[in-house]
């Protein structure tokens, strides 16, 4: 997966001018994995209310991107909140060089960490209202956990290019500025690449439609 996010392919046609659009939807039919933690056998009662992460959100991206996309990736800033004992959003997609803020919006401590190869970090424990930041300089998949709450986990997908999009609540996505060419389009959901399709952007201004169903 990390290699896929980083690969610089050779599309049939490259263009540095304003490109076309790839859009569509991702229908997730597979049952989402459990959002609960380990059996709380040693607890003295039920746990408090917690949010359920939206595990139907997907990331759609070009597995091979135009070479130009790698010359000047646009680093950005994103937020992965900790709210009601859940990471929000469950999946975050950023470009290499981006910084992600991890605010704590709960009244309890959290301890965000990752042991993923592209970026290992441990932010320690900090209270509500405080935030810590991490810069991601290597492409790949970074799995994020809370040391205190084992049910809390999230994904950060770090891309070496800018041709990706996260689906909205209805499962729609839209990747803009794609130079004309033929590309391998992949959909990632809940930890895995679930589907791949070939898609062609014929000319600048062209709109290529591609829908996915994830079983």
């Amino acid at each position, binding site marked *: 997966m990390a290699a896929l996010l980083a690969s610089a392919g050779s599309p049939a046609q490259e263009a540095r001018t304003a490109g076309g659009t790839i859009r569509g939807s991702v229908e997730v039919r597979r*049952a989402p*994995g*459990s959002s*609960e*933690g*380990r*059996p*709380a*056998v*040693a*607890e*003295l*009662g*039920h746990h408090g209310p917690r949010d359920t992460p939206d595990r139907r959100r997907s990331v759609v991206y070009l597995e091979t991107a135009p070479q130009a996309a790698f010359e000047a990736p646009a680093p950005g800033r994103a937020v992965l909140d900790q709210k009601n004992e859940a990471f929000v959003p469950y999946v975050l997609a950023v470009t290499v060089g981006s910084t992600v803020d991890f605010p704590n919006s709960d*009244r*309890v*401590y959290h301890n965000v*960490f*990752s*042991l993923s190869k592209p970026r*290992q*970090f*441990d932010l*320690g*424990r*900090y*209270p*509500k209202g405080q935030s810590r930041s991490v810069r991601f300089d290597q492409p790949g998949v970074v*799995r994020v*956990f809370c040391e205190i709450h084992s049910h809390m*986990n999230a994904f950060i997908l770090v891309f070496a290019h800018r041709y990706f999009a996260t689906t909205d609540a209805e499962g729609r996505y839209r990747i803009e500025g794609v130079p004309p060419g033929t590309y391998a389009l992949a959909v990632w959901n809940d*930890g895995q690449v679930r589907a791949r399709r070939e898609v062609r952007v014929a000319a600048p201004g062209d709109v290529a439609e591609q829908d996915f169903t994830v079983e």
Partner: protein
Amino acid sequence: MPKVRSIVAVAATALGVCLAAAGARAGEPVSLLGGRVRLGGEVSGTIAPHDLGWFNYSDYQVSSLRLFRVDLAAEARLASFASVLFDVRSDNLAAPRVYALYLRLRPWAGRELDLQVGLVPPVFGAYPRRRYAYENPLPSVPLAYQYLTNLREDAVPSRSEELVARRGRGWRVRYPVGSSEAGPGLPLVNSQKWDTGVQLRLGREPLSLALAVTQGTLCYPLTRDQNDGKQVSARLAWTPSPSLAAGLSGASGEFLAREVQDVLPAGAQGTYRQKAAGLDLQWSHGYWIVRAEAVWSRWNLPALEATRIEEPLDALGFFAEARYKIRPGLYAAARAERLGFSEIPSAAGLRTWDAPVTRVEAGAGFSPWRYVLVKASWQHNWRDGGAVRENDLVAGQVVLWF
């Protein structure tokens, strides 16, 4: 029958390892029946040289530093207000035993009141609810929750000299009244077994209160009552801020088995209790966690022959531990502790009824992956009695959990 038990133990171990591997690979607990049933577990292996002073034994045959443990837990959600929780464990490939099995109820939605019935987690103290090895920064178990004193629940000394003669020999003691077989002594609090009964928790942060009525006692938890006595225990928890948690615990229960009481002379018939009080503190911030616990326990024994044991037998265990994260996946930890005993009169004068023990332990833990934890530690023990009065142990532990 032993062959069948071995087969069951090996099968359970294999199942545990497979589930642990599957869970670790998936990065989350194994979920069945649409999430209504969740499985979690842990496989841990701990290795150390022979502990010739028996400092780390929690049973005559089981040392916490020479232990291969498979632990499987399940939670079945029956309704939004009811769950059944289950935990089974096998130590050193022995036949699996049920560690927890209880019904958890929240009768009124929105009210912070929980009821648990069955083989329930202890309310006393804080350490016993750190059930998994990955929640313990060091391989060993604190003395107050593991170390075997020279008291037994099924046999008692007839005079204080017999008790004092067994100072520092709690792993295997024999007394003339009650069971005639040699056996392991009692810890202040047995964290290796849970007790059976009813438990109630009410309140919400920053204050909550947990109460329990159970069959056994802190030092000898039971599935079936052995003396018609019940233990009442409680813990008041206070969490004034996310960084600080404190608890005040108490317990009182009849610990002496009926088989001992039945052979006592008429004048010594009575109720022999374990009473205990505890204080636990946890402070955490940034890369630090600091914990401290004190457990005081008092037992009453029948006063039979001179020199008679008329004074209650007190013990006080205390530990403080700290963990600091050096980098992602790597931490250093240390624990210092002391277990002391009250003095009683004997023919040789005033002596502590068991030999005081002091322990320091320092080590580190490393997680190459989230679901794997490797620990290493060095431990030094001092004891004012027994055949081995001092020893050093180096231990290693590997934990795979999901």
